[in-house]
């Protein structure tokens, strides 16, 4: 049995995993990164539009600061977020941008003087100040009060991931490619590492570590159409679930992006609308102002996706062999802007649709995009129930996104969480409590269990086809656990997924090679994916309200009285066919921003009984604090500084000193 020891095992080589590895390495700990693919090919590379951080340099971002970013994030989450975590995040985001600039990310910069932009389909002139010249600029994104999304053209994720990939090499951190974690090793509520399978040779290795970090990204591929890379299958989240100890949070909170191209499902960034692009229907009519007169195309993602679907249901979609779609029109931005600032979009349209978006409209429709749910952690990034297991990035439910994350807040989360969580991991590793006292017997048991399962698949005694079951799962998810949900359909989804999970325990593999074998890989991942699908479907079934991206047609109101909580799922036993569902309350009494109207459609939610009291209390507290000192006001309401690693506590400097 092969065993490798390290201090910190990082499963996942995307933005979150690499930033975590760099952080612990710089604190003097040994670390190994595992990845399914070369790290720079992780899905993070595909992020186009940008990263939110309240620098407030550009004219349209003037007056921005952590408070505004915090408010946008919490409202965006439909009050599902952990507000302390949202505060930690918005405070560190400017530092993360600046760190990355130092590592070479060529953020687009403010150019002093006048420039043309398109706002609400009209050309306007924006004047940038001389004082801001050369500082990092930002573009508009949905659901934000200020232009706050920093970017490098529309290749932001690529530039960030390559800078971090370079830092990983600079820090001599080994990255083991084509290595897949297939189980976590744990005993008595403590995680000791993972069983890892080589995708090239099929060999199993046990990696033992003081701390194990899951940074494996989202689980979008349980849906038939997704903007996610094909490797976003959520297996990292699933192996945490399969411990039976670690908790997953809010698995039903799945985001649909308004503008993926039809039929390929490839994303065109929100930057298209942020920069002034508009949505049109079959008649060429711009319909979003009819539904959301104020925010129009730049309402929050969940809102735009629902409005688009609603409009298509009214028969206003464009018919195509691949189903109905709508049009995204960025030709209004002019050729120069499209070809320079929306280059990836131009390439994608050129290669996959054969059109030039500077002239032609792009066929789009809402498509699965982001997993708000994931491994439930505390503010330090450690699993709430399995010690020594940490998680960050899209794989985690840390929980700054609640039921809907804002565009640009996700790549920001990956690096910010990497910065913060790596400090806590390092603290943990420095403590003797993290010593690895585990018997080789236990390790052997975990490795043998995986080997036996793989052997059984290769022996080929099963009779079910992984492809057929997987396709059915993907269809159920998109049709019945999608943008609009109802109790009846969710009931059927849960029942059928349960059946699929049972059948997935009897899979046949045609090609009996234990080494590189794509069919075998698909087979052993399938039950893991089905378990995640069940967590999402059951969570959605039980949540009889609508919040953020979770929309129940039979319960269209947000219901703070009964549902201001986080769904928590665990897997009770290996042979179980349903997860166990619990709820973690979100207390209104210590919120900085108690629940209120989110600003879309009409005001229509059921209040939490504690809300009026908290609002009154806040008013009273603020009366006693200097009205001009925003930091003091914030601290009086909900202190969070003490939760941050000390090195990230100092305030962020801005151009406008009043900010």
């Amino acid at each position, binding site marked *: 049995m092969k065993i490798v020891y390290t201090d910190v095992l990082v499963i996942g080589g995307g933005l979150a995993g690499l930033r975590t590895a760099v952080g612990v390495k710089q604190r003097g700990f040994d670390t190994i990164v595992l990845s399914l693919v*070369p790290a720079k090919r992780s899905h993070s590379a595909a992020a186009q539009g940008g990263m939110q951080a309240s620098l407030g340099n550009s004219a349209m971002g003037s007056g921005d600061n952590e408070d505004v970013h915090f408010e946008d994030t919490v409202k965006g989450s439909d009050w599902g977020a952990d507000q302390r975590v949202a505060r930690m995040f918005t405070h560190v985001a400017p530092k993360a941008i600046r760190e990355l*600039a130092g590592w070479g990310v060529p953020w687009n910069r403010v150019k002093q003087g006048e420039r043309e932009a398109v706002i609400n389909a009209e050309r306007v002139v924006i004047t940038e100040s001389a004082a801001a010249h050369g500082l990092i600029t930002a573009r508009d994104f949905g659901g934000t009060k200020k232009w706050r999304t920093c970017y490098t053209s529309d290749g932001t994720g690529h530039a960030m991931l390559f800078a971090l990939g370079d830092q990983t090499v600079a820090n001599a951190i080994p990255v083991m490619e084509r290595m897949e974690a297939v189980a976590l090793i744990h005993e008595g509520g403590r995680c000791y590492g993972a069983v890892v399978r080589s995708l090239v040779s099929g060999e199993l290795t046990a990696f033992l570590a003081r701390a194990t970090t899951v940074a494996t990204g989202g689980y979008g591929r349980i849906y038939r159409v997704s903007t996610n890379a094909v490797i976003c299958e959520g297996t990292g989240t699933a192996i945490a679930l399969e411990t039976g100890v670690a908790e997953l949070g809010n698995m039903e909170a799945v985001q649909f992006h308004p503008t993926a191209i039809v039929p390929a499902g490839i994303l065109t960034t929100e930057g298209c609308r942020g920069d002034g692009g508009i949505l049109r229907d079959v008649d060429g009519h711009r319909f979003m102002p009819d539904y959301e007169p104020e925010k129009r195309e730049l309402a929050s993602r969940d809102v735009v996706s629902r409005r688009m679907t609603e409009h298509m249901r009214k028969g206003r979609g464009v018919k195509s062999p691949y189903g109905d779609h709508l049009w995204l029109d960025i030709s209004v931005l002019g050729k120069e802007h499209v070809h320079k600032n929306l280059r990836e979009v131009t390439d*994608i349209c050129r290669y996959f649709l054969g059109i030039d978006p500077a002239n032609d409209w792009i066929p789009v429709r809402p498509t699965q995009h982001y997993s708000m749910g994931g491994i439930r952690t505390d503010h330090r990034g450690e699993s709430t129930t399995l010690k020594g297991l940490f998680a960050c990035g899209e794989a985690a439910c840390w929980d700054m996104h609640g039921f809907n994350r804002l565009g640009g807040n996700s790549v920001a989360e990956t690096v910010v969480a990497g910065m913060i969580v790596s400090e806590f991991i390092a603290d943990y590793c420095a403590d003797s409590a993290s010593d690895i006292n585990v018997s080789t017997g236990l390790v052997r048991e975990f490795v043998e269990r995986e080997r036996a399962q793989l052997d059984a698949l290769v022996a080929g005694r099963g009779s079910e086809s992984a492809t057929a079951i997987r396709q059915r799962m993907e269809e159920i998810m998109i049709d019945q656990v999608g943008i609009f949900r109802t109790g009846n359909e969710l009931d059927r989804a849960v029942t059928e997924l349960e059946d699929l999970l049972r059948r997935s325990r009897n899979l046949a593999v045609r090609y009996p090679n234990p080494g590189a074998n794509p069919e075998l890989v698909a087979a052993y991942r399938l039950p893991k994916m089905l378990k995640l699908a069940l967590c999402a479907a059951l969570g959605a079934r039980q949540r009889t309200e609508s919040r953020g991206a979770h929309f129940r047609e039979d319960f269209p109101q947000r219901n703070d009285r009964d549902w201001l909580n986080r769904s928590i799922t665990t897997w009770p036993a290996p042979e179980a066919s349903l997860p166990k569902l619990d709820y973690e309350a979100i207390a209104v009494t210590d919120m900085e921003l108690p629940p209120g109207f989110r600003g879309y459609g009409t005001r229509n939610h059921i209040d939490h009984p504690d809300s009026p009291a908290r609002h009154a209390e806040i008013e009273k507290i603020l009366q006693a604090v200097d009205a001009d000192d925003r930091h003091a006001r914030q601290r009086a309401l909900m202190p969070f500084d003490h939760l941050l690693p000390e090195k990230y506590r100092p305030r962020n400097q801005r151009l406008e000193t009043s900010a």
Partner: protein
Amino acid sequence: MSNETASAARTLTLRILRHNPQDPASEPRWARYELEEYEGMTLFIALNEIRERFEPSLQFDFVCRAGICGSCGMVVNGRPGLACRTLTSTLPSEITLAPLPAFKLIGDLSVDTGQWMRGMSERLETWIHEQAETDLHALEERMEPELAEQIYELDRCIECGCCIAACGTARMREDFVGAVGLNKLARFRLDPHNARTDADLYELIGDDDGVFGCMTLLGCHDVCPKELPLQTQIAFLRRKMVTVS
């Protein structure tokens, strides 16, 4: 979208170079598969269909399937390119696919570019050598907007390996850093955060494994899926290296 009159569906023949180095009995061989083409079919779709219907063991790599991540570099009808964004309609009905040469073969169309890129990166130290540690809490260093754009232009390399596969020198000299490596140095050279001088670079690339190994055959430039100005960058670096030598 265009209203092209539907032409009769073609039958595609895909010839794929297959070999599994993990299996001692395996020998490189050409395998043939036939598929009905349909509108919008890419090599990503075609290969997955072949795997699903005929050949569960067929190895290839796709990740983003959107032309962004560079995983699916392979030789398509003799020319290195990204398979995911290659529409079959742009190819004749007989399509040959082979793995990128110059990289270690993992199996069939899958090659190990990751290890190669890491080696190159370690050798050339392709990262910012910072002059001073960034103060995370203070205003960022200023940069001219045009310069940032210029850096991004070169930063767009996705390490797909196509330039190496198309390079005459890379096939002869195992240690040649290739257009990908030279372009990176050109990129970091532009960056004001970077402390390395041209003399430092000369130490790294002032020989035949570096900038003087290039035979200006333009293979890299022609095949780069991101259309990076590779030859211009190599020529520019060469002039700079001649002056510091």
